[in-house]
């Protein structure tokens, strides 16, 4: 039964552009655009949940890795003339490398200090992106990033493929022995360490893989919009990630996917100015965090799964 549901969901996801074309032909371009964003944000949120939901490290550095990936792809393709797949691979590798280098000092910090340290790191990354004009063109943005595919449905399938790959990796990392070790580190660090599980190793692994995947999503994002600006990697992106992950349910695949769909669909339904949208997201996040202990306590106490 569960397998049937999964096949059905996957089938609907793959056939979405045709379904949209059949139901709302006049709105197809717009709806498919929203779907592409949904897929990209879902992939990014899964990469974030690997760190926040599975090893319990509340990192706020994700925009930095997203930005490193996006700028790598943007610069490699516009100035280096790299083909699409090569620059995406480069983006994944460089974002992973940056995550590894940042993780070495940051994981010396615990709890609050780790969160503040990662936030500071994200802020420094943003300051560098804004001011290193020779490389990033600063506030002028990198423009004319080539699009590997041109039609919207093709973009959708590309984003969906990326989401599928991230999803497989996410499943692979969070189940089996590896997943159990990560959850042990999240739920009870001293006990995990006593059982011979090195907490730092699993935290670093999740941090580097999460960062590398965020870089890959950043690269796709830059190619899709064909423009990338420093504003894309501010604290607002962290807030979006937190809303998606905590709205749906931290540390659960289904929760994060549901969160991503709600998050990208909600503003389209609400049709609000960005300022009001952030006010509502903030209030929503506040209420969820205070009123539904499910999401967060799962992160601390761990659920039997």
């Amino acid at each position, binding site marked *: 039964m569960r397998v049937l549901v999964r096949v059905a969901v996957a089938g609907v996801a793959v056939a979405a552009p045709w379904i949209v074309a059949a139901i709302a032909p006049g709105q197809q371009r717009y709806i498919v655009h929203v779907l592409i964003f949904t897929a990209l944000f879902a992939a990014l949120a899964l990469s974030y949940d690997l760190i926040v939901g599975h090893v319990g490290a509340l990192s706020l550095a994700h925009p930095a890795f997203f930005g490193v990936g996006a700028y790598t792809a943007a610069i490699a393709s516009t100035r280096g003339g790299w083909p699409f797949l090569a620059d995406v691979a480069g983006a994944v590798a460089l974002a992973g490398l940056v995550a590894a280098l940042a993780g070495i000092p940051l994981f010396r910090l615990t709890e*609050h200090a780790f969160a*503040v340290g990662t936030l500071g790191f994200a802020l420094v990354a943003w*300051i560098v992106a804004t001011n290193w004009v020779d490389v990033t063109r600063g506030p002028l943005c990198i423009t004319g990033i080539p699009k590997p595919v041109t039609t919207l449905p093709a973009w959708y399938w590309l984003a969906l493929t990326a989401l599928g790959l991230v999803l497989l990796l996410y499943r692979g990392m969070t189940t089996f022995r590896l997943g159990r070790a990560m959850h042990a580190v999240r739920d009870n660090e001293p006990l995990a360490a006593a059982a011979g599980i090195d907490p730092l190793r699993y935290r670093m692994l999740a941090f580097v893989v999460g960062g590398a995947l965020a870089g890959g999503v950043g690269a796709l994002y830059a190619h899709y919009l064909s423009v990338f600006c420093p504003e894309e990697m501010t604290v607002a992106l962290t807030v979006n990630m937190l809303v998606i992950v905590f709205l749906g349910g931290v540390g659960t695949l289904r929760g994060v996917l549901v969160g991503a769909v709600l998050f990208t669909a909600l503003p389209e339904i609400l049709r609000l100015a960005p300022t009001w949208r952030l006010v509502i997201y903030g209030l929503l996040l506040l209420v969820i965090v205070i009123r539904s*202990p499910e999401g*967060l306590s799962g*992160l601390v106490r761990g659920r039997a799964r």
Partner: protein
Amino acid sequence: MLADVLEQLVHGLTLGSMYAMVAAGLALMLGVARLINFAHGEFFMLGAYAFWYGYRELGLPYPLAGVLAVALMVVWGVVYQRTVIRAILPRSWHVQLIATLATSIVLTNLAIIVFGTQPKEVPTALSSTILDVGGFRLVWQRLLVLAGALAIFWGLHRFVSRTRAGRAMRAMSQNREACAVVGVDVQHVAMITFALSAALAAAAATLVSPLFNIFPDMGTGLTLKAFAAVVTGGFGYVNGAIAASFLIGITEALAGSYLSYAYKDAFAFIIMIGVLLWRPQGLFGRRLGI
């Protein structure tokens, strides 16, 4: 050359005073309530707008507008404790961090909606007159900031060490459970701490606003720098946070003028990360206490 260095040093001390007043509030909340208030920079922003409203819109004289701002922010501190902090105080630090971060996002964007993105200017008589001592030029307002900050730190020290409420705060910073056992109302002490921290932020805003502009997202960067100071100084240790704030302010002013202006905002974090690598408990870090 010397006059130039001195001028930057005074700029650094002014910046340091601002960071210190904000960081002292953060350190108090962290020390007493074991809670990081990510919305603290927004307290400063709200205090600045309250001051602007009293000074420019109501036309109050400068000191009175400052008192109004401080009073309004004390009320805000109490409201914030009653609505958000009361609910999250017994919860895990993840919940506290996300709830206060969410508050900061709500406040920043509400400020954009209410006041617009156009910066507000609040020049005073002191901020437009210059003291000139043999080529060393200094805006009078900066002297007022330094004097005001010193007076405030002295008052804060007296409050924490001499009053009943201050004793309760110190007791709670050492052992919250024991306080609750002997009948200290933990939520009430948290309320006093938040009102006091909000008052500090409003006082800082009143002192420095005439030198800088007021805009809705001024809080985020300030929260982070004040945190850098709190972490550098030793978690939740108020005097350490104040000392680290001056270190950051002076470094920022000197490095911003002699190394790179564009990257001046990054120095606070570079100092923080450097100090944490060398001394993870912070420069003056101890285990407990404010």
